[in-house]
């Protein structure tokens, strides 16, 4: 054995005079790293109570508890409470949290002899020391939506061909996987469709089950799939960081794959003897007719125009909503035994009172047919058209050629969008004047984007004040820019016109799309005072029955939301209402 092998260990003694590297804990403390995964903290206002942290946690350490927190639209009052007798500090709940409100702080100290104190309520008002936080690019929820291939703007402007291409099978399945299953969208949707259920069915590939779930709440699912205002997507947690789950397109995909609904939805009906009349074959009337028919009542629908469909057929242009979709849905509804009498306007020949006598209940859903006017000087006269009548002419096939003409459309809703894009397709170069900011526009964001692509110039925050006419023809329009006044809380800002800065624009035709209201003239003649009307809309109770017994109102003419899905919802609710009314009559 070499001598230095024996003496070498003594070299260790040089540490006797060096400073030990011990962390003398109570005095010197080592602060954990920025990313340390410690005890949870959750910002109570940012959290929407979707419960996906509870779902991903494999130790079931997180339970969602009711807390007294003000429930904003699209959120619940559930907040997570963490049981540190189960938690393994993995941070998966932080990575899946759509809003990024939950994170693991850098604090880890919790000592106690009683195990109940280990259930810690992480909810706080403001952010304390951050630790393991949500990084958007590492979120467990895929941010992008399944890509739907688009038709290039030049090609689609030329004709009224269909803009909406729809999903293919693999992309739809992959997109349906993004759904967290939290159910916030169901509360936001007017018809409360069971969206997570049918997305799950699509994921598993059986579209029949998906369509069956849809038709429980919405008989016009394919139409809604194509043109809905999709409140569900506005509230979907996935959309907080990335794009929301494409619920509308998924619905369209599922219904498109089913040729004939008759085969998969059983419409066996237990006949009842009462007969019910429906005025107006719009979305509200049709859905009311469908659900009441399923309950067994005999239904007669009276429609003013030649073809049933209401605003869907005559308001929405064919490039947005193909006609065959409407026929397919209506064919299915009539297949259940609903009789639709077109071309008969109630109030002219037949009166409402006759209907009330003949039928045990009457449901009126004639929608908003009376357009509002701007009321500015020079407005009346030739070439100032109303949007819905303009669209009615186009949709009923009347040839209108606007080539080389300049068209100014006033308004910001979906009807305005249809007006500008239809006139664009008819060859005009189109301007849009809207008095508030672009973000306040009620129109769908995708519609605005496509409109801009098609070369329509948006004149935001402008208010026309006068129309200049020469020999009856419109020559130009005077307008002023507006400023926003945010004084009233909770409502959209009020536009304040700047009168000193007046500008003019040479224009040939003006189309007004500033909103429509219900046309109650016949009803007032017949019922007068007994029909209570408030702010232009009849007052209805929970069952949508107005002050006159047996008379029900629904659709755009009775609710504030003014879109297809709320009309369908009113139809379904009215069907329940009539059913209850007739049961305990």
């Amino acid at each position, binding site marked *: 054995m070499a001598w230095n092998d024996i003496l070498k260990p003594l070299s260790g003694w040089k540490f006797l005079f060096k400073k*030990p*590297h*011990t*962390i*003398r*804990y*109570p005095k010197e*403390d*080592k602060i*954990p790293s920025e990313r340390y995964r410690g*005890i949870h903290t959750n910002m109570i206002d940012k959290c929407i109570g979707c419960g996906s942290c509870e779902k991903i946690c*494999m*130790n*079931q350490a997180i339970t969602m508890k009711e807390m007294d927190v003000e429930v904003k639209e699209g959120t619940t009052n559930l907040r997570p409470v963490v*049981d*540190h*007798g*189960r*938690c*393994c*500090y993995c941070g998966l709940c932080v990575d899946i949290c759509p809003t990024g409100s939950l994170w693991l702080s850098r604090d*880890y*100290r*919790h*000592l*106690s*002899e009683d*195990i109940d104190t*280990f259930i810690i309520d992480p909810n706080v008002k403001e952010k304390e020391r951050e630790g393991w936080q949500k990084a958007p690019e590492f979120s467990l929820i895929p941010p992008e939506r399944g890509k739907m291939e688009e038709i290039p703007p030049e090609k689609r402007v030329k004709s009224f061909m269909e803009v909406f291409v729809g999903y293919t099978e693999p992309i739809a399945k992959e997109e349906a996987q993004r759904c967290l299953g939290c159910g916030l969208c169901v509360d936001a949707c007017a018809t409360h469709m069971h969206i997570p259920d049918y997305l799950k069915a699509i994921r598993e590939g059986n579209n029949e089950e998906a369509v069956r779930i849809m038709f429980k709440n919405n008989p016009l699912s394919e139409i809604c799939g194509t043109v809905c205002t999709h409140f569900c997507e506005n509230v979907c947690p996935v959309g907080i960081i990335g794009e929301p789950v494409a619920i509308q397109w998924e619905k369209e995909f599922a219904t498109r794959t089913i040729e004939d609904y008759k085969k998969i939805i059983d419409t066996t009906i237990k006949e009842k003897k009462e007969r019910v009349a429906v005025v107006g074959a719009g979305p509200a009337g049709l859905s009311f007719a469908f659900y009441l028919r399923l309950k067994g009542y005999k239904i007669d629908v009276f429609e003013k125009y030649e073809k049933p469909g209401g605003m869907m057929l005559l308001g929405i242009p064919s490039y947005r909503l193909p006609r065959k979709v409407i026929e397919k849905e209506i064919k299915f509804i009539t297949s259940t035994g609903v009789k639709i009498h077109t071309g008969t306007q109630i109030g002219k020949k037949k009166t409402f009172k006759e209907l009330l006598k003949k039928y045990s209940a009457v449901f009126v859903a004639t929608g908003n047919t009376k357009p509002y006017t701007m009321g500015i000087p020079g407005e009346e006269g030739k070439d100032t058209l109303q949007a819905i009548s303009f669209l009615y002419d186009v949709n009923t096939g009347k040839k209108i050629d606007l080539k080389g003409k300049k068209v100014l459309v006033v308004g910001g809703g979906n009807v305005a969008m249809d007006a500008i894009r239809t006139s664009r397709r008819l060859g005009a170069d189109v301007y849009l004047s809207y008095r508030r900011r672009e973000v306040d526009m009620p129109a769908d964001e995708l519609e605005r984007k496509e409109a801009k692509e098609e070369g329509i110039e948006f004149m935001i925050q402008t208010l026309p004040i006068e129309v200049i006419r020469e020999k009856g023809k419109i020559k130009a329009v005077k307008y002023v820019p507006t400023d926003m006044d945010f004084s009233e809380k909770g409502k959209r800002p009020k536009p304040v016109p700047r009168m000193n800065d007046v500008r003019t624009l040479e224009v040939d035709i003006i189309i007004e799309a500033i909103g429509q209201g219900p046309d109650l003239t016949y009803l007032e003649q017949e019922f007068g005072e007994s029909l209570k009307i408030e702010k232009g809309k009849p007052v209805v109770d929970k069952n949508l029955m107005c002050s006159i017994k047996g008379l029900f109102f629904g659709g755009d003419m009775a609710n504030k939301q003014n879109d297809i899905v709320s009309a369908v919802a009113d139809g379904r609710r009215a069907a329940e209402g009539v059913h209850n009314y007739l049961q305990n009559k």
Partner: protein
Amino acid sequence: MSILNKFRGKSLWMLHYCTGCGAIEMPPVMTSRYDMERFGIIPMATPRQADILLITGYLAVKTLKRVIRTYEQMHSPKWVVGFGACTVNGGMYWDSYATIKKLELYLPVDLYIAGCMPRPEAIMDAFIELRKGISSGKYEGWKKYIENYDWYKKNQAKLFDVKKWSVNYE
């Protein structure tokens, strides 16, 4: 008696028994980086010489039998410290057939430390807290074991045959 408690607090001998996965955080605490010997805590080899029994994390039922017998061999006053989530409410193995869920039912635990494997600082926190508690005579876990002995035995009997269990080998 309180003066003796001071001495008991200042010299806690820990049983060198890594029952669960939390024991991997004991070496840094025992050795040069955090050095628990500054508080007079050294690992002892046998239950006879030890004062604290550290249940470091989950406890398989097979280990629970040994731990109970080891605990009963320790000389009182003795204390039990539960490490991590698994001793409080089952931790990650809440649905495993082989581990116990609440240590409280089988042993009188004086202190639980939060963490899915508590950090060395958290362990030092526990030792300091234990030290203060013992000096002031607050932690009396071992008395609790003697007082409701049959309650503990009933819980243990639910899992294994308390009287006659033994190792099966060739």
